[in-house]
C-alpha cells in the first residue's frame, strides 16, 4: 500500500495497532524469556567454562588435539565401532569425545550401556573431570525448546516467533513518525516514557530484530513445514545425502590395520578449505582395514554455519569423498543459521550481537510495560486482565533474571559431588523464577516490582563474591593472572546487578511519588493517537 493511501486510511493503522498490541502481549512473556536466554547464549561456551572453573585449559592446534584424542581412544576403546571427536577451539578449549561400541553379535546379550561423553585436555589427551552442569547449553536449549517436551516446546517457540514477526511488521506500519522519533527518549513521563523507550529500542535495532526473528523461524522451518521435503524425497535419508553428502557406511572387514596418523589429514582438509579448520572428526571402524576418517569443517569466520566434510581412508589416508558444494538452498539456509547464531563472529561482533540482543529484550519488556501502563486508570482497582498482565510482567521481567542468577549461584554453592547436580541447577532456576513470581503476587504491585528487581539485583551482585569465595578464580586474582574470561564474566554480572538495582530504585521512586503527579503524568490522550504516534 502506498504511503499516501496509508495516511488516508486510519483504519489500517488502527487495526495494525490492535494486532501489534494483542499479539505482542500474548506472546510477549515467552518472547521476553526467549530474547534474554538467547542473548545469553551468544556466550554459550564461555558460560559453560565459567560453570566449570576446575577446567582451565590452554588452547592448542586442532592437529595436536586430534592426535592426543586419538592416542587416548586407542588406549580405552581400540575396537569401538565409532569415535566422535569434537575438536576444541579458542572458545571451548576442551576436546570432547564420544565412543560408540560395536553391538554384541549375540542377539540375546544385553546391549552395552551407552558411554557418556568425556572431555580431554587437548594438550595431553588426559581426561578432565569437573562438576556436573548443563552450563551455557541450558540457556541455549531453553531459548528454543522452553523446557517443554519435544516437539511442543519448539512449536510454541515457533508460534511466538511468528507473533514476533507479525508484531514487527504491524509495529512498523503503526509507527509513522519512525525517523522523527528516532532519538527521542523522555524520562519520568509515565506512559510517554514507556512509549519512547519501546520505540527507541525497537527502531534503533530494527534490522537486528527483523533478522533475528526471521532467521530464527527459518532455522526450524524443516520442522514447522516438512511437506516440501516429504513431497520431493520419499526417504529423509535421501534428502540428507543430497544436501550434506553420503556418510561412509562400510562394514568392518574384520582384518586389522593400523590407523593412519590424523594430523596430516587435518592439514590436507585445511588446505582444501582454504585455511578453514575442522570442528569434528569421526573415525569409523578404527584399526580395521575398512576404517574411515571424516572431517567436518567448523563455521568460524564463515557466514554459512554448515561447513563441508571430507572422508579419508583410515588406513592409507586416501581422500575417498567430499561433500557436494552446497546448492543455493543449502547455502541460504546455512547462512541464515549462521546469521542467527553468530557462530562466525569474533569478539567484537559477538559483543555487538549481545548488545543488540539486549535491545531486543528491552523492546519486548517495554512493550509489555506499555500495554499495562496504557490501560491502567489511576486510583482505580484494575480489571482482572490488567492485574494479571501486570503480575505476569513482574514474573517475566524481574523474576526470570533472578532465576538465571540463581542458576549460576547454585552452580557455585551446590556440593560438587551431588547426584544429578546439573539437573538440580536447572530446577533451582525454575523454582526461583516461578516461586519468586508467585510470592510477588502477595505484595501490592508497586512493591512487588521494587522487591523482585532488588532480589534479582542482589543475586547478580552476589555472584562475583560467591565466585571469589568458592573458587580460586575470583575477580582480583583473575585480573592479576590475565584470566580475561573470568574478569569479563564478573564485570558483566556486576553490570547486570547494577542495571537491575537501578530499575529497582526507579520502581521505588515511582511507587513513593504522590498519586496526583502520577495521574498528571499518565493523563490519557486520544487512545488512537497514543498508540500510533508521538506528538
Amino acid at each position, binding site marked *: 500500500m502506498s504511503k499516501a493511501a496509508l495516511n488516508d486510511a486510519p483504519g489500517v493503522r488502527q487495526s495494525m495497532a490492535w494486532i501489534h498490541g494483542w499479539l505482542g502481549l500474548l506472546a510477549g512473556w515467552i518472547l521476553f524469556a526467549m530474547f534474554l536466554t538467547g542473548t545469553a547464549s551468544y556466550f554459550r561456551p564461555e558460560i559453560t567454562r565459567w560453570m566449570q572453573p576446575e577446567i582451565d585449559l590452554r588452547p592448542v592446534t586442532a592437529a595436536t588435539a586430534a592426535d592426543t584424542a586419538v592416542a587416548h581412544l586407542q588406549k580405552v576403546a581400540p575396537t569401538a565401532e565409532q569415535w566422535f571427536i569434537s575438536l576444541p577451539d579458542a572458545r571451548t578449549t576442551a576436546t570432547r569425545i564420544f565412543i560408540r561400541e560395536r553391538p554384541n553379535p549375540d542377539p540375546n546379550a544385553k546391549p552395552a550401556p551407552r558411554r557418556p561423553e568425556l572431555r580431554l585436555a587437548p594438550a595431553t589427551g588426559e581426561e578432565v573431570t569437573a562438576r556436573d552442569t548443563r552450563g551455557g547449553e541450558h540457556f541455549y536449549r531453553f531459548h528454543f525448546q522452553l523446557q517443554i517436551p519435544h516437539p511442543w516446546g519448539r512449536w510454541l517457540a515457533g508460534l511466538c516467533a511468528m507473533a514476533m514477526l507479525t508484531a514487527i511488521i504491524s509495529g512498523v506500519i503503526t509507527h509513522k513518525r519512525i525517523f*522523527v522519533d*528516532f*532519538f*527521542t*527518549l*523522555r*524520562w519520568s513521563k509515565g506512559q510517554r516514557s514507556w512509549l519512547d523507550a519501546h520505540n*527507541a*529500542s525497537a527502531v*534503533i*535495532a*530494527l*534490522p*537486528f530484530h527483523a533478522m533475528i526473528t526471521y532467521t530464527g523461524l527459518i532455522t526450524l522451518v524443516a520442522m514447522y513445514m516438512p511437506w516440501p521435503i516429504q513431497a520431493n524425497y520419499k526417504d529423509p535419508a535421501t534428502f540428507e545425502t543430497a544436501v550434506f553428502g553420503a556418510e561412509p557406511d562400510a562394514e568392518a572387514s574384520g582384518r586389522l590395520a593400523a590407523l593412519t596418523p590424523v594430523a596430516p589429514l587435518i592439514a590436507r582438509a585445511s588446505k582444501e578449505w582454504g585455511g578453514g579448520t575442522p570442528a569434528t572428526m569421526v573415525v569409523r571402524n578404527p584399526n580395521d582395514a575398512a576404517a574411515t576418517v571424516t572431517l567436518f569443517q567448523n563455521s568460524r*569466520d*564463515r*557466514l554459512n554455519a554448515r561447513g563441508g566434510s571430507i572422508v579419508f581412508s583410515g588406513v592409507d589416508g586416501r581422500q575417498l569423498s567430499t561433500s557436494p558444494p552446497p546448492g543455493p538452498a543449502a547455502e541460504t539456509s546455512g547462512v541464515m543459521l549462521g*546469521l542467527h547464531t553468530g557462530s*562466525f*563472529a*569474533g569478539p*567484537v*561482533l559477538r559483543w*555487538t*550481537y549481545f*548488545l*543488540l540482543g539486549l*535491545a531486543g529484550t528491552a523492546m519486548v519488556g517495554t512493550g509489555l510495560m506499555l500495554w499495562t501502563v496504557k490501560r491502567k486508570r489511576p486510583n482505580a482497582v484494575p480489571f482482572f486482565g490488567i492485574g494479571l498482565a501486570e503480575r505476569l510482567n513482574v514474573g517475566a521481567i524481574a523474576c526470570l533474571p533472578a532465576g538465571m542468577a540463581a542458576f549460576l549461584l547454585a552452580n557455585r554453592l551446590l556440593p560438587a559431588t551431588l547426584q544429578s547436580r546439573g539437573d538440580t541447577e536447572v530446577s533451582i532456576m525454575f523454582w526461583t523464577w516461578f516461586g519468586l513470581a508467585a510470592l510477588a503476587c502477595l505484595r501490592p504491585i508497586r512493591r512487588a516490582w521494587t522487591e523482585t528487581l532488588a532480589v534479582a539485583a542482589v543475586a547478580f551482585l552476589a555472584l562475583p563474591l560467591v565466585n571469589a569465595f568458592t573458587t580460586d578464580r575470583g575477580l582480583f586474582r583473575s585480573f592479576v593472572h590475565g584470566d580475561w574470561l573470568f574478569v569479563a564474566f564478573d564485570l558483566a554480572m556486576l553490570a547486570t546487578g547494577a542495571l537491575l538495582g537501578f530499575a529497582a530504585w526507579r520502581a521505588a521512586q515511582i511507587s513513593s511519588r504522590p498519586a496526583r503527579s502520577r495521574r498528571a503524568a499518565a493523563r490519557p490522550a486520544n487512545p488512537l493517537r497514543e498508540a500510533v504516534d508521538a506528538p
Partner: protein
Amino acid sequence: MRLEPALLSYAALACLALSSHRLRRDVAVGRLPTVATLRAFAVALLVLAAWRAIHAFGPYQGPVAFIGMVSMAGLPLVLLLSRWPRGALVTGLAAAAMALGTLIPA
C-alpha cells in the same frame, strides 16, 4: 581498529540527531551547522563506516558488522541524549576524532 565502524556510526548518528528540530532547540550552542550540512556529514561518516567495516571484517561479514554497529552505536547515543544532550554530541565529536585519528597513519 575493529571498533572504528562503531565510532564513525556514533558520530554519524549524532550529526543526524543534531539535525532534528527538537534537539536543535534543546542544545542552545552558538551557531550550529545547517541541517543540510549535518546530513551531508552524516552520510559521509556512514559511508566511511561501511568502508571501514568491509575493510576490517571482509566482504561477507562486513555488511553484517556495519548494520550491527550502526544499530549498536544508536543505543548509547539515545541514552546519553536523553540525560545529557550536549555530552552526547561532544562524545560524537570525540568518537569521530578517534576513528579518523586511527585512519591517518594507515
